[in-house]
């Protein structure tokens, strides 16, 4: 034990002594880890956001399609669906998108019956009457308003409508409510100019999760022009987007890339004559091959751990403090929908563990053979000069 501590100590000094080489390796390695960490953190937190979004999603959403496109759904469909066995509450939902020409942003406008339990963490209260609204933090920021303030929106007949802001959402996960404007159901019908008796879609509660598929099939049979979407299908869709398997492939690819970089680096630099002589000296004065191997192992671990820590911290800062400014353009879709693109910091030990495993292990492994080649240096080479 003491022996290994002393070898680690020696490994540290020898890394410090070869400052330039160590710095070069660490910075190259850090860049790779940062890239990998950014991608993993980014997709993981999107996944978490999506999961929290889904947790509040209804069991079954029924849309109406016409000509293969989403169409407004008659509200009396709701009454018909309610008659199916195993169906609980059925609510017609009113929602849409609003383009704000002034700020150039897209908002989601949602109607409410006054009690959407999913939209908690509200500062103030939900709108009760026609002239009131509750807004997301992003909207409040962009429109420079807050609880007790006013919000002017242009409705479908191109008239400005004044709403009093009764509440602001301060959700943990701002992705959920950031761009949200909540109006009362009556207000939203007037605002969008929805024809009477039509809603955007219908949310259906199903008591038993196992019956979801059956209920969906029944809805489809009962209302041939409808499209029922179950929550599991939504999960599946989200998983298509952030497919874990592709994430895994990515990680494996990343690991391979690292290994390749290290290998290339090692080929390019190799062991300097200086280093070779140093190992020879160590062996001559009583270090064993296995101890030199241990020395090289610890050197590798120190370098890999340093790069891992630096890279992970850089990746974390990049995603959560600098709002993924390098990755965001790649997935433009998200940044258009969400004017203030800001992810909730989310720490998953598994992710960091995997990342560590995928970066440290290949590095240390790729140094085995070069290390061994150094370690078997014949001690009497230095005697023969």
């Amino acid at each position, binding site marked *: 034990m003491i022996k290994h501590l002393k070898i680690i100590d020696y490994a540290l000094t020898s890394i410090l002594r070869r400052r330039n080489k160590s710095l070069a390796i660490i910075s190259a390695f850090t860049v790779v880890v940062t890239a990998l960490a950014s991608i993993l953190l980014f997709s993981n937190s999107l996944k978490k956001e999506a999961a929290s979004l889904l947790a509040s999603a209804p069991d079954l959403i029924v849309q109406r399609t016409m000509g293969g496109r989403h169409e407004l759904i008659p509200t009396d469909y709701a009454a018909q669906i309610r008659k199916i066995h195993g169906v609980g509450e059925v609510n017609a939902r009113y929602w849409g998108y609003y383009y704000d020409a002034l700020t150039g942003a897209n908002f989601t406008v949602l109607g409410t019956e006054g009690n959407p339990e999913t939209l908690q963490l509200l500062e103030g209260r939900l709108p009760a009457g026609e002239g009131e609204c509750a807004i997301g933090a992003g909207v409040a920021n962009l429109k420079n308003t807050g609880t007790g303030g006013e919000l002017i929106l242009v409705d479908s007949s191109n008239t400005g409508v004044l709403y009093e802001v009764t509440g602001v959402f301060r959700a943990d996960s701002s992705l959920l409510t950031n761009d949200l404007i909540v109006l009362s159901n009556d207000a939203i019908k007037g605002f969008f100019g929805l024809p009477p008796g039509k809603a955007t879609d219908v949310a259906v509660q199903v008591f038993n999760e196992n019956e979801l598929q059956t209920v969906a099939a029944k809805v489809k049979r009962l209302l041939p022009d409808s499209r029922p979407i179950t929550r599991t299908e939504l999960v599946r869709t989200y*998983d298509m987007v952030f497919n874990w*398997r592709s994430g895994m492939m990515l990680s494996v690819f990343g690991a391979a890339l690292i290994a390749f970089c290290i290998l290339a680096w090692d080929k390019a630099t190799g062991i300097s004559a200086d280093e070779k002589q140093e190992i020879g000296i160590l062996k001559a004065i009583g270090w064993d091959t*296995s101890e030199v191997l241990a020395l090289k192992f610890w050197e590798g671990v120190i370098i890999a751990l340093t790069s891992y820590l630096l890279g992970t911290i850089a990746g974390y800062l990049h995603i959560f403090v600098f709002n993924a400014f390098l990755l965001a353009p790649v997935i433009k879709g998200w940044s258009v929908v969400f004017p203030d693109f800001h992810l909730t910091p989310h720490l998953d030990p598994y992710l960091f*563990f995997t990342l560590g495993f995928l970066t440290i*292990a290949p590095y240390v*492994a790729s140094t*085995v053979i070069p290390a061994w080649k150094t370690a078997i240096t014949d001690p009497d080479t230095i005697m023969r000069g």
Partner: protein
Amino acid sequence: MTLYAGLLGTVVLLRWDFQSSSAYQLSLERKTYLISTIMNYVLGFQILSVFLFVYTAEDIHQLFVGAMCATGSLNANPVGWLALLSKIIICFAAGLWLVLNYLDHLGEDFPLVRLKYAVLLVLLPCICADLYLQLQYFLGLDPDIITSCCGSLFSTSGGSVASSIAGLPAGPSMVVFYTGFVLYAVTSLFGLFWEKAFLRYLHSSLAALFFIISMASVVSFISMYVYELPTHHCPFDMIQKEYSFIGYPLYATLFCGVFFGLLPGIFQRAGSIPSLQRNFRKIERTWLLFSLGCMTSFVMLTTYMVLFSNLTYFSVLKVLAGNTANERIIPCLLQH
């Protein structure tokens, strides 16, 4: 890399000639360093990968309809069970190889070198098979499969092996568990003072037996106390966050204890090799002590959970009554 080690191992096995002082023999001797380093890495990797494998299975359960923990994910593609089993076996085997290697290094004449590389050659295809199984498992996963989870596999009413273990009455299995441990501890203590070969064999057989008893106990009663739910027998749920990851120390101490408990018997013959005799007894003592230490922590951890579980009152009653029939009623009351 393992393949490379295997190739080197073959060469060493075929060309090893300790009497020769040719340069070739010297280079072979040096290659043994490389092989043991690689094997060290492989073992480290395997231990981590058991952990990762279980954790990944745990993590992806939400993809499968009906899966609530690792059991569900493993059920989604039955190859997973094989992969898990092979991972655990390889962990043990790689550990044994390293011990063999260590012993070989103690002797001045490489006493175990041929055996060592022969074993390595057996180990190699196992590692490949393990990789293959793992790959098969992950590629064969299909999110559309509706799987059954621990609730059904480890339910007390069922025909499978797992459910019959789960259905073992808690009282008697506790008795067997603690008797097993006391027997094991006593043999260990005897083993520390008498260096008789039969004691070593007895010790190792007991270690193996205790492993089986412990795994059965985990399913049959330890799990109940962890979940504080007399019907829940899943051995995987306890590594979840909800149970403060208690499964990790539990399994780690058990596995270590069993591993070191097996060593004295397995390597009994090595003790009679002349060049090893000097150090062997000392090492054996260390194994015995370490094994006993791990086993004791495992049993103490278990006892702690049994004593401080909220389930205590109920199960004492049940043990006293020797009755498992009312287990069926409780789930309705305790269901989350």
